[in-house]
């Protein structure tokens, strides 16, 4: 019996499954046979496995584990929770018997969880009781009480009196062990009452015995004696030698203390004979001790010495036994503490790892934010630079456009023409030319700061420009402007004088060098969301490459126009274009712009 014999006179009403059931070899064999016959991995096999393991609890507990493991595997596979719970409980029993309290606790805890899941009160209460016992063994009284109270509640809920009595007495024992006799006695009285109601004499005897013990410790020898006597009598009637021996021994002891040595001797003698019968060494030692003091008092020195010797021998064997179990207990506790420490260490380590991960993650996020910030700043800077460059290009182009429209050739050629008219005394022509020239100049200056003007206004300016040039060419220049029906000239916006460089080109490099009249034909069309100008002339065609001066002038205006169209394309996100092509007679220019409407 690994169970510590701390409560030496206290009869404990704990019940492992088949706790007192001595295993019978033939029963074991028949179970083994049955198991062999039933190879199917089902719930019946699980039942058999557990039953067999249970039968082996005291005879060969180590063999029981393999059976339990199989029972667990099958139950889990079949999702049979009750089987799993029963197996775990039996596993706990096996460990408990082997004094491996730690593993026993673990198995019982698992069994408890499962039994709660399937709400099997019977199972739950038995497990709670066993858990309480282990904690009591480990002197973890608070946890023991907690489990016993739970055990009490479940047994009350089930209405199982026997279990309730056991729970009450176990609670009482804990209180008595912790010297809280008031509580202990009150629980014992409750248990006693119930036991009497149940007419369970074994329980009544055991509880009465425990009650007497408590009273003895409370220094109430008379009451204690009374109860011990009751317990002894009842035990004799039901033939329970354990209780009888314990009670008689206690009566002897108390009488010795009260110096009623004759009475003490009688009781000690009776107790000794019963103890010998049942082989209770410790109680035999106690009996010898009482007898020794009784003989001494009678003056039988030799008998007293002999009794004392017996006492010492037996006590030593008990003590060594006790020490052994105490050692086991200590070792267990040490192991448990070590495991606890390891677990704590592990928890700490995991916490640390978690913290490291967390810090790492935060750092990573910070880094990403910083990275993005730097990236964004650089991108913004680039964007800004691009915008600035674009704006610079816009203003530069605007200026150049103005300069190309008001190009010095045009101004001085015009002034030369006026001078020429005056010298020829053609005042009317000179004045006419001059007024037109100033009107055009004013319009160009006014419009140069506008991004776009209505198409009709732009065409009026072109008209004026061609009239001026026609005067200079002595009316050998004719022109025609055609606008498609689906264009509203006053609601269509165009960049001012975009055509001027091309018309100037046509006039001075196409028509002026030509013999005979020249013709410029301007057509304006709508193509989807683009506006298309087509300018045809019937001049001499594009200038030859070696005429560098004229060419550069022409291409300068065209370059600027290209630039203006690029800007417009960029702003409107549509691609405009310029196409210059040679014809058999003259040149054709096609300009495509994003169509922009005012309303």
């Amino acid at each position, binding site marked *: 019996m690994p169970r510590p014999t701390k409560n030496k006179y206290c009869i404990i009403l704990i019940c492992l499954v088949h706790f007192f059931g001595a295993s019978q070899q033939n029963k074991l064999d028949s179970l083994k046979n049955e198991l062999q016959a039933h190879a199917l991995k089902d719930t019946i096999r699980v039942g058999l496995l557990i039953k067999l393991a249970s039968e082996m609890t005291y005879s060969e507990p180590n063999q029981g584990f393999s059976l339990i493991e199989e029972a667990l595997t099958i139950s889990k596979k079949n999702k049979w929770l009750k089987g799993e719970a029963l197996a775990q409980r039996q596993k706990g029993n096996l460990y408990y018997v082997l004094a491996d309290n730690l593993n026993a606790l673990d198995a019982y805890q698992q069994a408890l969880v499962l039994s709660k899941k399937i709400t099997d009160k019977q199972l739950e209460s038995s497990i709670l009781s066993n858990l309480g016992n282990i904690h009591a063994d480990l002197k973890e009284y608070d946890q023991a009480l907690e489990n016993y109270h739970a055990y009490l509640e479940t047994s009350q809920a089930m209405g199982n009196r026997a279990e309730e009595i056991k729970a009450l007495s176990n609670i009482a024992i804990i209180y008595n062990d912790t010297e809280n006799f008031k509580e202990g006695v009150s629980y014992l009285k409750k248990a006693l009452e119930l036991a009497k109601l149940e007419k369970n004499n074994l329980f009544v005897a055991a509880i009465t015995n425990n009650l007497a013990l408590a009273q003895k410790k409370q220094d109430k020898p008379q009451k204690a004696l009374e109860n011990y006597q009751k317990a002894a009598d009842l035990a004799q009637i039901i033939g329970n030698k354990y209780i009888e021996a314990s009670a008689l021994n206690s009566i002897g002891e108390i009488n010795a203390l009260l110096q009623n040595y004759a009475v003490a001797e009688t009781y000690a003698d009776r107790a000794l004979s019963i103890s010998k019968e049942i082989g209770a060494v410790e109680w035999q030692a106690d009996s010898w001790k009482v007898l020794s003091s009784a003989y001494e008092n009678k003056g039988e020195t030799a008998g007293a010495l002999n009794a004392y010797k017996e006492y010492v021998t037996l006590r030593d064997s008990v003590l060594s036994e006790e020490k052994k179990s105490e050692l086991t207990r200590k070792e267990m506790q040490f192991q448990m503490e070590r495991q606890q420490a390891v677990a704590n260490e592990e928890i700490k380590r995991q916490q640390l790892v978690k913290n490291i991960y967390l810090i790492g993650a935060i750092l990573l996020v910070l880094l990403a934010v910083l990275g993005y910030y730097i990236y964004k700043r650089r991108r913004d800077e680039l964007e800004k630079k691009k915008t600035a460059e674009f704006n610079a290009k816009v203003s530069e182009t605007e200026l150049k456009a103005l300069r190309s429209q008001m190009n010095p050739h045009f101004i001085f050629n015009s002034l030369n023409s006026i001078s020429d008219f005056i010298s020829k005394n053609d005042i009317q022509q000179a004045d006419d030319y*001059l*007024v037109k020239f*100033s*009107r055009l100049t*004013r319009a160009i*200056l*006014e419009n140069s700061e506008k991004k776009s003007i209505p198409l009709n206004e732009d065409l009026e300016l072109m008209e004026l420009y061609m009239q001026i040039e026609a005067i200079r060419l002595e009316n050998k220049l004719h022109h025609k402007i055609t606008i498609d029906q689906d264009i509203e000239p006053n609601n269509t916006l165009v960049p001012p004088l975009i055509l001027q460089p091309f018309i100037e080109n046509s006039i001075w490099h196409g028509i002026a060098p030509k013999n005979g009249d020249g013709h410029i034909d301007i057509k304006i069309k709508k193509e989807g969301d683009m506006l298309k100008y087509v300018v045809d002339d019937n001049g001499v065609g594009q200038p030859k490459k070696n005429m560098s001066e004229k060419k550069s002038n022409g291409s300068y205006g065209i370059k600027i126009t290209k630039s203006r169209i690029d800007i417009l394309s960029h702003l409107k996100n549509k691609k405009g274009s310029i196409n210059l092509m040679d014809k058999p007679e003259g040149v054709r220019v096609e300009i495509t712009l994003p169509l922009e409407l*005012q*309303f």
Partner: protein
Amino acid sequence: MLKALIVDDEQHCIDRLERLLESSTYNIQIVGYCKTIDEAKKEIVKNTPDILFLDVQLGNETGFDLLSQLNSIDFEVIFTTSYDKYALKAIKFSALDYLLKPIDNTELDNALQKLRQQRSLKEASKKIDVLFHNFKESNASSKRIAIPTVEGFSMMDTKEIIRFQSDTNYTHIYTLSQKKITASKTIKYFEEILDENMFFRVHKSHLVNLDYIKTYTKGKGGYITLSDKTKIEVAVRRKDELLQKLRA
């Protein structure tokens, strides 16, 4: 027979105008010319001209200075200028007439014809009042405008105007006092001379005073509701710019 006085600080400009007036079909008698404000003041008192051709830029002074120094104005004024954007805007605001130099004889004829149709000299004086009011008033939102109508002219504070609505070559003007005036000018004319921060062309046919927009309702272009509860459609292409102005 109308008496004309020419005020200009450049002789060749005077000569050109004289030549053009002499060859004109309108019967104009030139009573004199002067090059400074002081000379002009004396000439005006002495000759009581019907028409004053007045150069905007007179050395360090302006033609406006001359007008402001006169006690009464009982003649028509036609400004002459070669290139002065701000002066031109002010002149247009007062619906006064002007000629651009070098003067084109067709334009001179047009101006003279308009003059002949003028009902009374009182209007000339009123227009000049408008001009001076606008010079004195530095606050852009409180300008007076002379509105040409079929009958003559209507002088009005720009603050009074809620909106303009185009009707081909005419424009209807709706005021705070719930009057409707029909101007003999296109909506474009008003859009050009009015402050673009005060009036906005929300639609081909509508020019509205930004101060009187109560709500904007979303839609393709959406519409605005003015303080007089009229709802005005907003053109799709004007929507973004309008919202930008409203936010500012």
